[in-house]
């Protein structure tokens, strides 16, 4: 055991005391496929006597069954724990392992080398202090080595070990080692990795892992373990200004109102002046509450509950910050984005964005460029595909408090979530805001929503008619507008044709253009609803995500989705403009229903079955709904 067995046996108390005060190093292994990452970790655990007898017996059996090393032990099997990994001899997802030595505690994340699984590598890297980048001595620096190095730098890992592995297969040649080290040095410098320590090793045989190897007498640098145990990790979060995203408002009874969260940087004490962002209200810390008693001070990393001297409205996602050094507040940013979705990014589509404890709607503009990880060239692009890295502008639906990622991972890192699949499709790092709105004071509007309602005699609403081409949207929309007008309601009809001729004449019918078309229409509809109108928007709007975005932008209580439900064969039979025929002849590309998908609404407010009701009855259905919702009397 690397644990001091004697101390454990004779003075366990003292041993535990020492344990408690050890520092912790979080590191990852990364690099190209088959360079020996998992083997390295397995071997490291084994050398550190951290593999138990029963696990060793299992390893022997597994090695014989699925190992890649013939009769020898396949140490990778100690970490590659999934059935699919063992069968294929590869790593698919990150494995986290924990171990400690006399000097330090370690959490290591073994990440996959395959490009396909880059997002799992990023997962492991996001929390690491140090990266061990492996290179197969026979193959040298590969694209994937560069990609991982680039990601390591982007994610803010400052310490790197270049592990030149499988040296046993090149006769422990110093030349090969030196060649790889110098090949890598230039690239590392370009991407801003300054602290690179190169170590020659054989993960399989254990050379230079915990002891200096006799096979590399020419090497007098540290062993891997020696380096990991002593490398200084500077934790400057403590010296940074105080920040705490509010996760949960703690209200056990009317007399207590606390704000729970984990301090992400700085120090806080009762009496400190703090600001609540984005609102900008200021107060002082009253108490720092924990179950073990109130604290006189709390520091970065601690989870606490803070009460304030004044009654201020604070909710989840707000950030408490020291009044002396505020984070920025903005709604438009430039950021690095790593795309992780199977489907490529759609510029202008709305994604959910999680930043700190806040979730906002975000739109990504067309990427400024993507980065070729091999050459570091910036190339123009319209989108980002799986595993691509680019620089994009982001626009949020409201201002958020933030710091640059390089200053604070927690207030500068974000993830993007697809609204339909709910999957995490991107991760990003804020660089800077495009428009500072640090002193936001919303324009005070004297004429408010209620005032307009009273004047209008009804409440605003967006009636969103969706359905196939030829389903009957326009006919129903016309009838509906006639009926509402007769009531004295103020209406406006927006439809594909009147919008495509003006506002959107620069757009075609590709998926990306359709998304943009609907986005613009949604914004216009919202403005009109703000002005107090009942807007009838009649658009094929084939994608669920866009309609969902429209609903969220307009606000669910002002949005009514009307599904004009006509089966494709019937709509095609009607074909009032002859478009289906054209599409069938191949003269019209991207035609909804033919070669472009229509995603029917799952739970529309009103569904109109045009095979059984007349346009008049259909309009009646919508009017009934508006009455039931209290939009019109």
């Amino acid at each position: 055991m690397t644990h001091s067995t004697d101390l454990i046996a004779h003075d366990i108390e003292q041993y535990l005391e020492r344990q408690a005060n050890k520092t912790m190093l979080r590191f990852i292994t990364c690099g190209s496929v088959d360079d020996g990452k998992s083997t390295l970790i397995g071997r490291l655990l084994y050398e550190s006597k951290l593999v138990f007898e029963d696990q060793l017996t299992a390893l022997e059996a597994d090695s014989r069954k699925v190992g890649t090393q013939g009769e020898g032990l396949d140490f990778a099997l100690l970490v590659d724990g999934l059935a699919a990994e063992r069968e294929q001899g590869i790593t698919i997802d990150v494995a986290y392992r924990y171990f400690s030595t006399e000097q330090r505690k370690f959490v290591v994340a073994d990440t996959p080398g395959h490009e396909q699984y880059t997002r799992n590598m990023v997962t492991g890297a996001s929390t690491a202090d140090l990266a061990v980048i492996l290179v197969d001595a026979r193959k040298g620096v590969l694209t994937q080595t560069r990609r991982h190095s680039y990601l390591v730098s982007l994610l803010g890992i400052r310490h790197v070990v270049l592990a030149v592995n499988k040296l046993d297969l090149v006769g422990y040649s110093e030349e090969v080692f030196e060649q790889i080290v110098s090949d890598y040095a230039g690239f590392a410098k370009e991407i801003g990795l300054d602290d690179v320590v190169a170590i020659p090793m054989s993960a399989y045989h254990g050379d230079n892992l915990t002891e200096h190897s006799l096979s590399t007498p020419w090497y007098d640098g540290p062993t891997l373990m020696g380096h990991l145990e002593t490398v200084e990790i500077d934790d400057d979060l403590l010296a940074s200004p105080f920040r705490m995203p509010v996760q949960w408002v703690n209200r056990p009874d009317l007399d207590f109102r606390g704000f729970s969260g984990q301090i992400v940087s700085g120090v806080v004490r009762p009496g400190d002046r703090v600001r609540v962002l984005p609102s900008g209200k200021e107060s002082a810390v009253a108490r720092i509450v924990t179950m073990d008693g109130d604290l006189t001070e709390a520091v970065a990393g601690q989870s606490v509950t803070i009460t304030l001297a004044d009654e201020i409205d604070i909710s989840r996602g707000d950030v408490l910050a020291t009044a002396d050094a505020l984070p920025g507040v903005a709604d438009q940013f430039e950021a690095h984005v790593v795309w992780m979705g199977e489907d490529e990014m759609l510029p202008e589509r709305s994604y959910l964005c999680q930043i700190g404890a806040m979730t906002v709607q975000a739109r990504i503009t067309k990427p400024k460029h993507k980065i070729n990880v091999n050459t570091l060239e910036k190339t123009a692009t319209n989108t980002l595909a799986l595993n691509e890295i680019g620089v994009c502008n982001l626009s949020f639906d409201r201002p958020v408090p933030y710091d640059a990622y390089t200053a604070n991972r927690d207030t500068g890192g974000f993830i993007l979530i697809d609204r339909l699949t709910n999957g995490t499709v991107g991760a990003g790092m804020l660089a800077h805001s495009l428009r500072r709105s640090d002193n936001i004071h919303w324009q005070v509007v004297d004429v408010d929503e209620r005032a307009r309602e009273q004047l209008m005699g009804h409440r605003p609403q967006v009636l969103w008619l969706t359905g196939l081409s030829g389903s009957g949207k326009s006919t129903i929309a016309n009838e509906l507008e006639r009926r509402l007008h007769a009531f004295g309601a103020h209406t406006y009809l927006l439809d594909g044709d009147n919008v495509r001729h003006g506002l959107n004449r620069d757009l075609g019918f590709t998926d990306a253009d359709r998304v943009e078309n609907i986005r613009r229409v949604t914004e216009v509809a919202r403005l009109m609803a703000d002005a107090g109108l009942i807007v009838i928007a009649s658009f094929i709007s084939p994608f669920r995500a866009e309609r969902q975005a429209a609903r969220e932008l307009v606000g669910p209580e002002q949005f009514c989705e009307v599904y004009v439900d006509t089966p494709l064969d019937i709509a095609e039979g009607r074909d009032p403009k002859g478009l289906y025929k054209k599409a069938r002849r191949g003269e019209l590309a991207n035609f909804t229903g033919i070669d472009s998908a229509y995603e029917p609404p799952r739970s529309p407010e009103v569904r109109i079955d045009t095979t059984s009701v007349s346009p008049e009855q259909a309009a009646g259905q919508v009017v009934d709904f508006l009455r039931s919702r209290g939009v019109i009397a």
Partner: protein
Amino acid sequence: MNNVHSMSATQPVLTHLERLEAESIHIMREAVAESENPVMLYSVGKDSAVMLHLARKAFFPSRLPFPLLHVDTTWKFREMYELRDETAAAGDLDLLVHKNPECVEKSINPFTHGSATHTDMWKTEGLKQALHLHKFDAAFGGARRDEEKSRAKERIFSIRSAEHRWDPKQQRPELWRMYNVRKSPGESLRVFPLSNWTELDVWEYIRQEQIPIVPLYFAAKRPVVERDGTLIMVDDERMPLLPGEEPELKSVRFRTLGCYPLTGAVESVAESLTDIIQEMLLTTTSERQGRVIDHDSSASMEKKKKEGYF
């Protein structure tokens, strides 16, 4: 912690346990803030005890904002039921107990039906039933990544399909301390606040915080029989003895707790927490060796989880 600014690289500001505690609390608050109907699985073991303690800290001074759920098999050790009932009697929480009614009716047990069927029907099926019955959309579990190789691969927030299946190849990226808690209709979340704890951390924390645990973790003379190299405690009269088997009093303790007929004891004289920690540090076998269900096949845990085991 008065000298925070003069921190040296060897003297961390927060101790290791303080950091783990803060992380777990953060995880629990995220899950509670973002889910509609969370629940904490409470198995009465040491990990559950730690998880419960952390939950009390996370939401103090509020009451726990979720109930505890004990998926009972009727075959747990008697001392486990005692601690469970004491916990419920503390009065600061709600405890639900679920027993799969089909198992009750058919008297499913490990002796007649085998350990696999027993575990599958009482635990896996029972858990699914309970989650479904109460419409829980997020469930806290006390699993740790250091327990087993496939656990080492699992995210802290783990999505399960409507059939409660885990798909290890489709895990969401999980960056920083940012958790995507969104799920589609029917899907549910498993949340593992102790993911980054090791067995040693758990014991040290129990010692530091003086958390009550089932006495079976401490060595005492107990009646055991040896079967297939495993020491099984004869905890009640339902345990059928094989011909020639005679319970023997041995000083034993348990490293994990489950159904008594399926849980192996280790011979030990560790009577205090410090003894346990000492013994653990000097031992040469892993914790899960005491679990009969894990011996079935080497990939058995991953398979079980794909089928909906916690």
